């Protein structure tokens, strides 16, 4: 009995202890996730911790980069923050309305694929294309916040990845929260490019200097291996050298944490600018101009679940508070209006009068239709976005890209049933067609199958390079084609400029560009002269020897000049009879048995002339050849297509390129919220005819398909089609506004007459009751 009692009390004590510990644990975690109410920001003097949770001492020989996870975790719950909007694309179940997708742009293959893990309409899930988290991080890490996709757990890494070498790209807290002007997005992008993932946050925050490249290290390298003293030139192990002056005696560093995140931090990844817009005259969002920061509306708590600021957000995320931070929430708050206050919303936001605008507009249109983005024009405005066009990465090399071509505003009826302005991009990719389904091919697979078809510029540049290196010429070798000069640039491709020298009759004119102007590669001479021209023949020999160094040459090099042909049998210059038609300028050729092929083929000339200096990177001819090549390399005999400009291109039975419409070629759209314009610049400020006219840009503007292929076969749509509206009706409705002034006059006259008659009747009644009429009679 005694034992039973003792056992009972032991159980009670154990249960009580368990309860107390659980309570304390809950309290502790609550402390980390709730706000104590103070509006100040803590001064962040912190000891840096590495990824093994070890203290970083800057004077150590081999210091590791700091880990946000272990440096910030004592006060901030890293796992809670991981669920935030910027990190949860992979595992979140609620993605809200569509946002800007990541765009996989590969100019060489003409690929522009919108990707997202969020399952938004029109985007491809990277997993479906075989892109691993490693691939995705390499492609887009430059503008990622770290964490989420780029921070896989140990059991989530793919075999071909190099996470062990590069480290994981942890959430870069300082990327957003650092108030220091030393925070460098460019440094972040460069470190990601070098696969220095674990070093990127340290380098970009300005805490230290990072050298070395993980991308050059062997896959077997491990962090514990440390630096390699035998290689200080090429495969240099990334190391960090902290600035000792930033540390105090307790090895603490001051983190300049902003009480309110600076707009610059957000704009590193969220800038949008019109193509061709001058910084001097660039427009600003009205809210930014008024001093309202991004985070004043796009708020979050420790969960980092950012408010996105659209009207249906509260419903989408099942969180009523989010509704307060939309346009409607601030400017047209119903609670405030019920109180009779029409003067101010949140933060004193003016309550709009919206005079003369029929209420139906507020049911069918989002606020942004009239107030955000550029005003609609006959052709949409092309913009560049940070993530799409790699903006905001500064250095000697140019990071920003022409593609993808994103246009705005395109007014689309979205899932909420309201029309809202969107950005639009036409996807472009090579695909495999199975039945009616098209699956995109990875650019690397296309490149492999296409061989040199897609390397036209590179092929020409190879010839230039050989001549420049071994041809002993003074100047830059160039090609004159179709009145243009083509010369190599620093990126290993071609630049084009207008040819202004003497008239050239030859289709291909090999020349040298020097300070003295443009001179022929082979100086003019008479090959049939009795006395040979030593200078000319020396140049011919040098050029031929230079061409002979090319690895992929299809034959022996030769030069045809006038009616003579020069070549190098067994290393000696030999002249023989050339083709009867002869040439006026030197023609570089390949000699293969009895076959003579030009050093730059007709196909290459056509491609160069069509694409160099143009936005497009592919010709129809190239596309047809690549499609042929893909089919020939495929053992399953599948059908291959190229999607561009809203059309699907494929080869017919006779090998001709045909095009058709297909859902897989549909453009991808996502709503835009900024640049917000004030009432004075809103759509409709000039009256109803801003939209309601028979030729308004709002309803009848044109959206043309755009893609990397140079063609006149692209999709072309009228703006109304994106709104699911009927064109004839909108034309008719627009026309009706021409007679509206007359209608107003008619109604006014009717109102005056009928009103007068009613007044007369009232007077009659009054006269009768007062007896005035009786007396008069």
């Amino acid at each position: 009995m005694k034992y039973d009692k003792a056992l009972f009390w032991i159980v009670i004590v154990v249960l009580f202890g368990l309860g107390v510990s659980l309570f304390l644990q809950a309290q502790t975690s609550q402390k980390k996730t709730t706000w104590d109410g103070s509006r100040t920001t803590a001064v962040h003097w912190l000891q840096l911790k590495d990824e093994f949770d070890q203290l970083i001492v800057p004077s150590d020989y081999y210091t590791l980069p700091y880990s946000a996870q272990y440096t910030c975790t004592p006060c901030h719950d890293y796992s809670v923050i991981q669920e935030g909007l910027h990190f949860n694309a992979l595992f979140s179940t609620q993605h809200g309305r569509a946002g800007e997708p990541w765009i996989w742009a590969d100019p060489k293959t003409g690929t522009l694929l919108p990707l997202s893990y969020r399952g938004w309409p029109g985007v491809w899930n990277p997993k479906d294309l075989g892109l691993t988290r490693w691939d995705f991080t390499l492609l887009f890490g430059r503008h990622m916040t770290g964490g989420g996709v780029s921070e896989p757990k140990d059991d989530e890494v793919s075999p071909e990845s190099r996470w062990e070498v590069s480290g994981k790209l942890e959430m870069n807290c300082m990327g957003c929260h650092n108030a220091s002007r030393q925070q460098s997005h460019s440094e972040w992008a460069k470190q990601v490019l070098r696969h220095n993932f674990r070093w990127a946050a340290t380098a970009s925050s300005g805490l230290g200097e990072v050298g070395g490249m993980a991308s050059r290290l062997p896959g077997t390298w491990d962090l514990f291996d440390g630096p390699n003293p035998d290689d200080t030139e090429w495969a240099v192990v990334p190391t960090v050298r902290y600035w000792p002056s930033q540390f105090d005696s307790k090895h603490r560093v001051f983190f300049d944490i902003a009480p309110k995140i600076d707009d610059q931090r957000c704009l590193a990844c969220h800038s949008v600018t019109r193509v061709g817009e001058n910084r001097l005259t660039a427009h600003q969002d009205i809210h930014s101009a008024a001093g309202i920061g991004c985070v004043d509306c796009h708020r979050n708590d420790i969960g980092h679940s950012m408010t996105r600021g659209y009207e249906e957000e509260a419903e989408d995320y099942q969180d009523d508070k989010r509704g307060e931070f939309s346009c409607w929430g601030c400017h047209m708050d119903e609670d405030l209006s019920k109180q009779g206050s029409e003067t101010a919303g949140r933060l004193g936001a003016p309550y709009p009068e919206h005079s003369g605008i029929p209420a139906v507009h507020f049911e069918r249109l989002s606020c942004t239709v009239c107030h955000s983005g550029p005003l609609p024009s006959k052709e949409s405005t092309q913009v560049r976005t940070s993530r799409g066009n790699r903006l905001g990465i500064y250095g000697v090399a140019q990071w920003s890209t022409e593609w993808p071509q994103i246009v705005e505003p395109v007014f689309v009826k979205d899932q909420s049933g309201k029309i809202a302005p969107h950005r639009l991009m036409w996807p472009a990719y090579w695909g495999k067609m199975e039945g009616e389904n098209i699956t995109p091919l990875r650019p690397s697979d296309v490149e492999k199958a296409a061989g040199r078809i897609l390397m036209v510029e590179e092929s020409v540049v190879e010839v230039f390079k050989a001549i420049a290196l071994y041809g002993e010429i003074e100047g830059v070798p160039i090609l004159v084609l179709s009145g243009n000069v083509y010369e190599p640039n620093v990126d290993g491709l071609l630049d084009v400029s207008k040819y202004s020298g003497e008239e050239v009759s030859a289709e291909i004119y090999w020349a040298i560009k020097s300070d003295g102007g443009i001179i022929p590669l082979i100086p003019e001479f008479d090959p049939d002269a009795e006395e040979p021209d030593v200078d000319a023949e020396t140049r011919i020999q040098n050029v031929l020897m230079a061409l002979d160094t090319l690895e992929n040459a299809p034959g022996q090099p030769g030069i045809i000049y006038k009616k003579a042909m020069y070549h190098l049998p067994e290393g000696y210059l030999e002249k023989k009879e050339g083709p009867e038609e002869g040439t006026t300028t030197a023609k570089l050729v390949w000699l293969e048995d009895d076959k003579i092929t030009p050093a730059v083929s007709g196909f290459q000339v056509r491609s160069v002339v069509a694409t160099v200096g143009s936005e497009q990177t592919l010709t129809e001819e190239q596309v047809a050849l690549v499609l042929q090549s893909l089919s020939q390399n495929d053992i399953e005999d599948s059908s291959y297509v190229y999607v561009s400009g809203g059309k699907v291109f494929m080869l017919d039975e006779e090998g001709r390129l045909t095009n058709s419409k297909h859902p897989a070629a549909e453009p991808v759209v996502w709503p835009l919220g900024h640049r917000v314009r004030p009432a004075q610049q809103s759509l409709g400020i000039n009256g109803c005819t801003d939209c309601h006219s028979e030729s308004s840009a709002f309803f009848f503007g044109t959206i043309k398909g755009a893609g990397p292929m140079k063609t006149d076969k692209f999709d072309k749509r009228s703006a109304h089609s994106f709104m699911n509206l009927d064109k004839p009706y909108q034309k008719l409705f627009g026309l009706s506004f021409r007679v509206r002034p007359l209608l107003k006059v008619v109604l006014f006259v009717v109102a005056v007459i009928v009103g007068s008659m009613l007044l007369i009747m009232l007077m009659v009644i009054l006269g009768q009751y007062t007896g005035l009429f009786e007396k008069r009679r």
Partner: protein
Amino acid sequence: MTFVIISIFCLITLFFVLSYFRFRHSPEDRNFKTPWIERSKNLYRSWFIHRYPAKQRWIYIGLALSYCYLVLSGFIFALISVRLFGLVLLLHVVLGCLFSVCLCLAVLLRSRFYTWNVKDLAPANLKTKAGKQKVWQIVLFWIFVASGLVLVVTALFQMLPQFSLRAQLIIFEVHRYAALEILLAGIAFLYFSLFNDGQ
């Protein structure tokens, strides 16, 4: 929704009130001997053809047709809680204009037949069926005209840029209730006109 409920309630009430009037005051009509088509033709001739000059008839035809369309389009959309849109809206605007013009002409041409007279309200006059109906017709005619005026004015105001969204919403509500009023007045007026033995 409130408007829909009020509209349905008003229409049902009007139906019962008129039915009551019909069977209370016209017991002699209960046992009809002529077929209803024949009676309708007679009514059409006596009430429309013989009553109005040929040119004026077009005004009333225009008024009646536009009234029917405006009522149907407006109330059907109101009943399903959807704002007018598309061609229906466009026609509503066009026929609204026609209605206003016809109403104006009708008022100019017909108001002298519906002039208020104190003598009509004399107790002796009100005791007769014809007297009562005459009074009802005058009252309903002017209610119809007043509602028409409100409809015209609110339609005009909705097209002017001087009114804020809040004002627009109020104007729209006024337009809807004026439309309900003109519907009820129109039905009642028609009743008292068609079944008035004195006219």
